């Protein structure tokens, strides 16, 4: 056999292995075509034509450049992702927006609206049935809570079919969920009342009233639930004044303990419990972590993702550059800085997904987008459209839920 024959065979093999195109491919093509046309007309009409063209062109360029990085398309004038965002094995498996609904005089409830990634179509789909969603590793199953919180049962939702495969009845009021790294356990945080209860704060200047989370917390314990058989023990704990209204537990990097946020002298403080209801000191590797930097420890366990440490002013027109700290988890000493204002998830031992600002440092407000950052490189790869987390309409201030595939 010569090289030509081998090339022929290899190509035939590779072609033969391909699964057919997903059903609905034609509709997907037509939908993308419609969107592109709308954009094209809009960009001709708008005075900011150049800006629009750039923001549209970037994702295409990127998706052609790196094989494992998939930015999302965004809908017309909005920034909500439409197609899957992923890099390496890390995927935005869902995202949610939050809106506070008035529930009584001076009271309200902050409610999340989720959009879940359908693994078969690679698109996000709105699913209003759930008040809380945690996605299992693999991004094919999610644990869900129904609309009214605290809930009395946990559902295991098949993300492809959109159907709940199994319900686990739990008498305690459930407010939050989080999977272990290995996907076999769930930590269920329980509350006496809805942890998303808000109170209206009068605006002294006569403007629109704001909302503030209720204090103190009604958190009363947690449960480690076996995902396979639904068994688990509930541990009652006392929650002091330093625990905020919603303070859900999540597993530590080694799945041997759980942590939750506390409010204290500094931002980002955490408390730790073992898996049987006992408060413990922070594990050696997690002593310096902050709850508001969700990326935490790198897959190889050697690097800790920490907070924003530097911002560089690039002038009036260019977006400012943010840098976050990468530290030695055991000593807390900074090893290097990496681009990104908030490090959200590790992709591998060198790359992370982060929020990074899209606005100049001064007098331009704050807007951001999801980007891929690499340790040792100043380059960022945009993964999503722009978002206005503070002042924009709440329906557009989305928050990603990450999972590993």
């Amino acid at each position: 056999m010569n090289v030509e024959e081998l090339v022929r065979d290899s190509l035939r093999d590779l072609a033969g292995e391909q699964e057919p195109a997903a059903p609905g491919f034609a509709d997907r093509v037509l939908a993308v075509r419609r969107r592109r046309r709308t954009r094209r007309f809009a960009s001709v009409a708008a005075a900011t034509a150049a800006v629009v063209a750039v923001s549209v062109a970037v994702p295409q360029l990127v998706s052609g450049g790196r094989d494992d990085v998939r930015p999302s398309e965004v809908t017309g004038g909005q920034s909500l992702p439409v197609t899957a965002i992923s890099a390496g094995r890390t995927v935005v498996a869902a995202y949610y927006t939050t809106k506070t609904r008035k529930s009584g005089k001076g009271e309200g409830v902050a409610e999340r609206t989720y959009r879940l990634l359908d693994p078969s179509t690679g698109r996000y789909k709105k699913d209003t049935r759930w008040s809380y969603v945690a996605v299992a590793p693999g991004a094919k199953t999610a644990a869900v809570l129904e609309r009214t919180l605290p809930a009395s049962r946990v559902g295991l939702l098949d993300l492809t079919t959109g159907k709940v495969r199994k319900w686990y009845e739990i008498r305690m009021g459930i407010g939050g969920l989080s999977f272990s790294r290995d996907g076999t356990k769930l930590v269920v945080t329980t509350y006496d009342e809805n942890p998303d209860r808000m109170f209206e704060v009068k605006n002294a200047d006569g403007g629109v009233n704001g909302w503030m989370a209720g204090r103190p917390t009604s958190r009363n314990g947690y449960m480690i639930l076996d995902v396979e058989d639904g068994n688990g023990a509930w541990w009652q704990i006392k929650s002091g004044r330093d625990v905020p209204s919603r303070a859900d537990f999540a597993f530590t990097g080694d799945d041997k303990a759980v942590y939750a946020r506390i409010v204290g002298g500094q931002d980002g403080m955490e408390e730790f419990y073992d898996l049987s209801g006992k408060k413990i000191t922070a594990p050696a590797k997690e002593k310096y972590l902050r709850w508001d930097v969700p990326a935490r420890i790198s897959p190889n366990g050697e690097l800790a993702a920490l907070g924003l440490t530097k911002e560089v002013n690039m002038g009036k027109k260019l977006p400012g550059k943010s840098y976050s700290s990468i530290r030695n988890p055991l000593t807390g000493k900074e090893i290097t800085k990496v681009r990104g204002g908030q490090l959200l998830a590790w992709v591998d031992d060198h790359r992370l997904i982060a929020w990074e600002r899209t606005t100049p440092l001064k007098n331009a407000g704050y807007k951001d987008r999801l980007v891929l950052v690499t340790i040792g490189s100043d380059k960022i790869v945009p993964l999503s459209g722009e978002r206005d987390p503070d002042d924009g309409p709440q329906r557009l201030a989305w928050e990603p839920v990450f999972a590993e595939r």
Partner: protein
Amino acid sequence: MDAEAQDSFREFVEHRSSALLKTAVLLSGGDRHTAEDLLQNALIKAAGRWHRIDEPEAYVRQILYRQQISRWRLKWPRRELSVAEPPEGRTAGDDSSAAEVRLVMRGALARLTARQRTVLVLRYFEDLPEADVARILGCSVGTVRSTTHRSLARLRTLAPELAALNAPSRPSRDYAPVEVRP
């Protein structure tokens, strides 16, 4: 695009997208995601002039191939697939099996430039004569010939195991199907 054209477009995609996707996967060096993007772009272009196209499949294929070439012309970042193991690092032992050689071959194919890969796909997957390849890609027969030659030479460099293939003493083997994820 009116309703009738949309229906015929849908029907075409439903019947032919899987076959077209295979070609797109080969053109993108085995990366399914890139392949879907490639095919999607080609279909969008075809949809724009659907009622004027006589042979949709040939038209879409031509766009697929030319897209690859134009990307190269525009000096876009090289669309190479990163593979877990660099083929250069593998050494050909006496016992290197047919399956292993194919694995190496795939890694090497993924590392060619889009233009090189496109020419090989046209020549050896579609089995087209050089003149047809030249017509599709809009270049001369000489260019097709030299690109083919250079692509094969590069494959040999990327995968030294292939050198052994031309050795006459090598016995022929049965090629068992192997499941490989590129």
